[in-house]
């Protein structure tokens, strides 16, 4: 670009401070842009994508392969009645829902990483294409050949919208290679001409294209942030049905609210056994309860 300006008899002082450091200033300006706008590393994002997908898969496949939660619930429903029995079954249902929701929403996290990857890969390629295509035009203009119709691929605003539209469900992320996100971008990348056929218009065209590209990058990242906010809101709404509650007092033998009638064998009349259960409950609590507090524990030698 500097050679083109000099060839056109112009002072290549791109920052308005004529001195001998102009070429360094230009190089530094490009470096700063690169540091600011290329700080997300696609290789690191690809590693993260695989790790998060593995975490999702492990949550679903490895947490309860023998269906301990389901068989416990079946057992309680089949043989035990009462409010504590219902509370345990509700608790175990919430655990099952929790495992499913954790799997699904961890895959949404992987989708966010996949979208960041797609934006960054396409943005970097677009930046390089703009620089190289502009350099070709600068070279052509410096040799008095004008602009021969050189084009570059510009990433537009709809990149993330296209990716979100292409992914039908988070389950599909489980088998999706991160590079497949790049194929979902479709018409969000457009072929554009390098503007200008003379030195100043080429410089102005480059600056304008670069600013558009950076704005598009920021906008696409903002769209990922907005999408994540929506997913987090959905996830938050699921809290009441997918986070197991603390064990209620009616189901806790340490509590005086526990009764045999709360968790009664289906072949029994609760009243026949309630007094003995209460007697044994009290003895059990006395025998198993620990002294409260650090001082009491130290006095007790524990």
């Amino acid at each position: 670009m500097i050679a083109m300006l000099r060839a056109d008899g112009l002072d290549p002082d791109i920052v308005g401070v004529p001195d001998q450091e102009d070429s360094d200033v230009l190089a530094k300006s490009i470096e700063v842009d690169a540091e600011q706008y290329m700080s997300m590393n696609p290789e690191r994002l690809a590693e993260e994508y695989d790790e998060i997908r593995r975490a999702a898969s492990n949550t679903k496949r490895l947490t309860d392969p023998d269906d301990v939660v389901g068989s416990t619930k079946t057992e309680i429903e089949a043989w035990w009645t009462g409010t504590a029995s219902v509370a345990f079954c509700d608790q175990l249902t919430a655990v099952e829902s929790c495992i499913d929701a954790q799997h699904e929403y961890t895959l949404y996290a992987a989708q966010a990483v996949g979208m960041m990857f797609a934006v960054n890969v396409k943005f970097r390629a677009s930046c390089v294409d703009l620089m190289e295509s502009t350099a070709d035009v600068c070279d052509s203009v410096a040799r008095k050949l004008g602009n021969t119709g050189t084009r570059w691929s510009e990433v537009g605003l709809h990149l993330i919208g296209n990716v979100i539209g292409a992914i039908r469900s988070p389950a599909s992320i489980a088998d999706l290679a991160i590079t497949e996100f790049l194929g979902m971008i479709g018409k969000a990348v457009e072929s554009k001409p390098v503007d200008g056929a003379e030195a100043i218009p080429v410089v102005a065209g480059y600056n304008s294209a670069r600013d558009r590209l950076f704005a598009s990058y920021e906008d696409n990242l903002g769209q990922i942030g907005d999408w994540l906010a929506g997913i987090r809101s959905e996830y938050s709404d699921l809290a009441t049905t997918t986070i197991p509650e603390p064990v209620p007092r009616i189901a806790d033998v340490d509590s005086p609210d526990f009764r045999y009638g709360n968790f009664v064998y289906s072949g029994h009349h609760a009243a026949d056994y309630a007094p003995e259960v209460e007697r044994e409950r009290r003895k059990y609590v006395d025998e198993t309860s620990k002294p409260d507090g650090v001082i009491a524990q130290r006095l007790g030698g524990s």
Partner: protein
Amino acid sequence: MPPPGQGFATQVSEIERHARELPSVADRLRGPIAVLTEHTATPRPLQIEAVSAVERAYGTFTDELANRQRIASDRIVATAEALHDIAAVYRRVDGQG
């Protein structure tokens, strides 16, 4: 009081078995937590706000996932302990505790 009966004893044994097995579910559910919390991005110098914002949003979300997984694991263990205690009391009533 009539004797609790063989069926009662059998089902108390089953409750004990499930109370022993449930903590392993909690342990395995805790497995991915470290991965979820490791991935909070560290801000870098000269980073534009749009990058910082999306990394923050992602880090907050994965922290929320990890936190819920931790709570669920703790409550599975508490459920197992509650079932264990009930079975222990019922064993005594059955004269086997």
